[in-house]
């Protein structure tokens, strides 16, 4: 009995005595962890920048920092003066076009579907949500082989629309989930009021649903853009001609040569990576954790 009464009294002074020390140690360990995390996160990106600002010869030395930093490699990419990057801007345009079309079609198709399923409550809507869930859990890589064979049969190889089709296919399910979840928070009375006033479904969709869904549209649009920028396999399989290929495919081609111009390659990679990084950090606040979920789809 007396022991159990004594226990709190025995522990408390010991905790207060060491409190300062323990707080300092914890804080110190946290800062140490922070430093390790920064090095861990930044190292490959530092390497990318370091190689890009080195002259070609310096890449093949044992320096850990750029000895003679130069932006020469970036200029060579920008004015396409090296033969590996002679179509760079055309390829960048292809990537951009592919990304923009993927964003547009994903938003359009997913919002129409989620409007019919979530707002109009079409009968057998569960078929559509299950179809979307099924698509979400099929690894895209596994489907690439039959997809390529089919596209080959239809003569769609080297056509960027074949890639857009695959990207939209794998982006819409996730977009539909987000829209259904987000749409559930919008009061249904708005739709009903508009309907009583004689609005047709397409008017309700256009004038009520879409404006209210704007935040979710921004998040899903960002997601679709990042997806198209991250995707490599379908572009690699489907786009092989100089005129049709995207920057991602061109980047991978660098690896085929023996003495790769690594500085130009990394400069290209940095220019390529800038857009999604900028877009991501611009809309980071809009992409709550769940909204970024689909970004891991392999």
């Amino acid at each position, binding site marked *: 009995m007396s022991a159990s009464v004594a226990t709190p009294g025995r522990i408390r002074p010991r905790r207060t005595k060491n409190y300062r020390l323990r707080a300092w140690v914890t804080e110190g360990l946290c800062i140490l962890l*922070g430093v390790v995390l920064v090095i861990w996160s930044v190292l490959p990106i530092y390497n990318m920048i370091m190689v890009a600002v080195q002259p070609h010869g310096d890449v093949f030395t044992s320096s850990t920092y750029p000895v003679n930093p130069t932006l020469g490699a970036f200029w060579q990419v920008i004015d396409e003066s090296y033969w590996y990057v002679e179509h760079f801007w055309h390829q960048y345009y292809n990537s951009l076009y592919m990304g923009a079309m993927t964003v547009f079609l994903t938003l359009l198709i997913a919002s129409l579907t989620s409007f019919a399923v979530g*707002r109009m409550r079409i009968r057998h809507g569960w078929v559509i949500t299950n179809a979307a869930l099924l698509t979400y859990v099929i690894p895209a890589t596994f489907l690439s*082989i039959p997809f390529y064979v089919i596209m080959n049969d239809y003569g769609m190889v080297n056509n960027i629309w074949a890639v857009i089709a695959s990207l939209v296919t794998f982006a819409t399910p996730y977009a*539909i989930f987000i829209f259904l979840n987000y749409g559930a928070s919008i009061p249904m009375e708005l739709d009903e009021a508009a309907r009583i006033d004689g609005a047709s479904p397409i008017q309700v969709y256009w004038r009520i649903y879409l404006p209210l869904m704007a935040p979710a549209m921004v998040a899903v649009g960002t997601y679709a853009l990042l997806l198209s920028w*991250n995707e490599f396999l379908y572009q690699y399989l489907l786009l092989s001609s100089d005129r049709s290929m995207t920057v991602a495919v061109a980047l991978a081609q660098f690896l085929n040569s023996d003495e790769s111009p690594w500085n130009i390659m*990394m400069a290209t990679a940095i220019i390529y990576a800038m857009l999604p990084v900028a877009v991501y950090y611009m809309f980071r606040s809009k992409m709550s954790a769940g909204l970024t*979920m689909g970004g891991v789809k*392999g």
Partner: protein
Amino acid sequence: MDGMQGMQTAPALPQGAGTYTLPQHRRRLWRGGLHGTEYTWAVAFCIPYMAIFLAFVIYPVLYGLWMGHSPALYEQLWEDPIYRMSIVNTIIYLAVGVNVKLFFALLLSGFFMRKQLWVKGLLVIFVLPWAVPALPTFLSIHWMLNSQWGLLDNMLWNWFHIDGPQFLDTSRWLALGSVIVAYIWKWMPFWTVILLAGRMAIPQELYESAEVDGATGIRQFTHVTFPLLANLYLICTLLSTIFTMGDFTTVYFVSGGGPALTTNVLATLGIRDAYTVGQPDVGMAAVMTALPLLIPLVLILMRKMRTAEVQL
């Protein structure tokens, strides 16, 4: 306890892809249901998605099953030592990569719960690997690991006068380990953010009452945080395993399947057989051997998502 259960099912957890379940009492939202032209409109709205689903999911799936239906293909595969090695690699890649990544993500999500401003700033840097597109970073890692001029080798040589190991050129295990580390580097931030959101959804009062009851530090984690995060953690593990099974880019760019084709996983081997070797049906058969693992995972995942109504 009821309160805790309720918390897990509440939409307080991060939103996102989950099963979309209709409300229990099925309120008629467009009151009176759909009439005439409205029904036609609703069907019309669904047609684009259904067309995409049929043309680019169902048709390729059936086509793929048909391509890989012949048992002879599997006999041919099984006799290929590279294929057997790829199966082992895939299992290691999934078992180690996914679990180590998620375990660290779980711990780090606790670290990022700290209130200091610099920790919030650190999170912005920490998500950088995820925000930068995969391809440029993997190319960079590939060059970093170069045994002669790579950054890691240079660092070891300049600072410690150690001749760094040949990460990608000679040893299968070093190369596979490099791929796994690159994979963890790329995807850990993302899952940390997911688990961080899960932690933030836990009401602070639970910790306060736990503290009153004498649970501090590690015991708060084992008795409050983990029981509440367990379901989310399990779903993350399942989803991540499924996604990682289809991961092509990491292996292809970091090790390229080398040295001597010893670090391929099923995804890269399938693509290699289908395009480099030029036998699409063999490649299809190779990726289809992942189905005995994929299908049970998908079934458990769907069940988990439905019963728990966790919204990822």
